[in-house]
């Protein structure tokens, strides 16, 4: 497994067709498993793929979808023989693209491009890794948690969800993550940044890796900033291409706009404006 300074595994330079192996309902989410025959076996946690149904991508609500959609891979299982990989994606159905993907069944073709972007850097030796996920943002933390455990760096995992149905995604983690729900139906009642603050106040010698809705990431940033804890945030932005071609997916940073798809999606909180 390569651990370059830039945590990026290169993608083949074309969209290819993977085969859907299964689509499982996990509470409020869909877990899609697809076999990518020629893709690299070792995407980096935090990297993402651009996905589209291999057939009938379009003709949904409002004559959409048209563009592919970006999804962090949740887990990757290399195929025997060193080439190809079974990829897992955790989806929340929020519009025509995710709804079409949620319709897929085993055997259907899935068009994909990736892995794309820069994933999570391995944490410095002197800081314990802490993973903070909100809602569908837990997806990239699954493989990151697996990898850190495999490297004997078992991280703390704090997850927040809207409700019990969404919290079902916590069961996918290897350990027993700390779960909060807005409605208190599972785990503690409240937002995930409360246990985060408590945890960091107990021991600030940590590095936070967070992914989730904008509001949550802002809260994580301010807590970490306040306590002087470095934070790596996996961001989202509307994307057309996923590989730097359209300049559409920008976020403001200390030195101007950066493209989430090629300069991220994982950013050091310190560089974000």
């Amino acid at each position, binding site marked *: 497994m390569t651990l370059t300074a830039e945590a990026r595994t*290169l993608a*083949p330079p074309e969209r290819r067709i993977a085969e859907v192996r299964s689509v499982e309902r996990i509470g409020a989410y869909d877990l899609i498993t697809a076999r990518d025959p020629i893709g690299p076996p070792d995407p980096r946690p935090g990297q993402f793929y651009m996905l589209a149904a291999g057939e009938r991508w379009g003709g949904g609500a409002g004559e959409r979808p*048209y563009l592919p959609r970006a999804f962090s891979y949740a887990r990757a299982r290399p195929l025997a023989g060193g080439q190809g990989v079974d990829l897992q994606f955790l989806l929340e159905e929020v519009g025509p693209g995710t709804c079409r993907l949620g319709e897929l069944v085993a055997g259907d073709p899935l068009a994909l491009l990736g892995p794309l972007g820069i994933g999570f850097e391995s944490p410095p030796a002197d800081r314990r890794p802490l993973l903070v996920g909100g809602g569908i943002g837990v997806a990239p933390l699954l493989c990151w948690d697996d990898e850190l455990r495999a490297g004997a760096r078992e991280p703390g995992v704090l997850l927040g969800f809207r409700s019990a149905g969404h919290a079902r995604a916590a069961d996918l983690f290897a350990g027993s993550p700390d779960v909060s729900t807005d409605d208190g139906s599972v785990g503690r009642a409240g937002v995930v940044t409360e246990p985060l603050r408590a945890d960091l106040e107990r021991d600030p010698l940590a590095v936070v890796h967070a992914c989730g809705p904008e509001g949550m990431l802002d809260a994580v940033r301010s807590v970490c900033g306040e306590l002087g804890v470095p934070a790596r945030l996996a961001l989202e932005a509307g994307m057309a291409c996923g590989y730097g*071609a359209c300049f559409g997916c920008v976020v403001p940073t200390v030195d101007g706009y950066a493209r989430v798809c*090629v300069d991220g999606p994982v950013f050091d909180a310190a560089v974000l404006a």
Partner: protein
Amino acid sequence: MRPEPVELCGVPLRGPILNGSGTFDAIAAHRAFGDALLESFPFDCFVSKTITVAPRDGNPPPRLWEAPAGMINSIGLPNKGLERFLELDLPQLATLPVPLCVSVMGFSHDELATLVGAVGAVEDIGLVEINVSCPNVETGTIVGADPGETEAAVRRLRPLTEKPLIVKLTPSATDPAAVAAAAEAAGADAVALINTLKGMAIDPRTRQPSLGNRTGGLSGPAVRAVALEQVAAVAARVDIPIVGMGGIASGRDADDFLAAGASVVAVGTESFRDPAAGRRIAAELAAIRAAMRDASAGAAL
């Protein structure tokens, strides 16, 4: 299957497929795909995104909104500015396996002159594209919307370089063919069209314009019929080659543009769906051409 080589304004190309300016960043793509990108480069000529004299941040996000069979963008021409483009980007673009066309836009005739003079002097640059879809800060109007303004701009630029000048028209002209004819009269070597159509979308959650810049440009298959009509109208008026684009997503589409009068075609939005789209379209086009040859050969017997 590869299409036959072609010539564009005297520059030999291995095939007829360009990228639309601003729709492919070869440097970023190299970061994502590595050298495999260069081994199977999707285009036969690479067109840079539009460069301006001064650096530009571009428009505030959101910059993208999906539309039926297309998308709207308000990117806003972010670029390093002329100087840093020549210093930082050009050396990398010069290593691409295909000829390089640099697109420029100025907010005055002087700015345009500065840009064309500068890129026109660089050996590694094969062609220069002038993006006239911009407001002239002196007159306030869109240069490319007016035949007179376009002719004046191109006349001023023509003597400044030996390199072929391609004028990228704006579709917001009432009569694009008249603007193309004016560009030809002023010495343009080719015209490229269409650019994006002015468009807007509303975010249902706010009932406000979705794009940070309120309005943007529509592209993709949704605009193909409009592009074909403008290409045919321009082809009927000018003798210089036409770079046809607007919603091309297949070899079939590309052949439609050639049938309408384009000499070569450019692929834009479709590359967002697949970085290899240019190569796929070239192969499909070659197959269509071969079938046509066989058919006419059969007919000849």
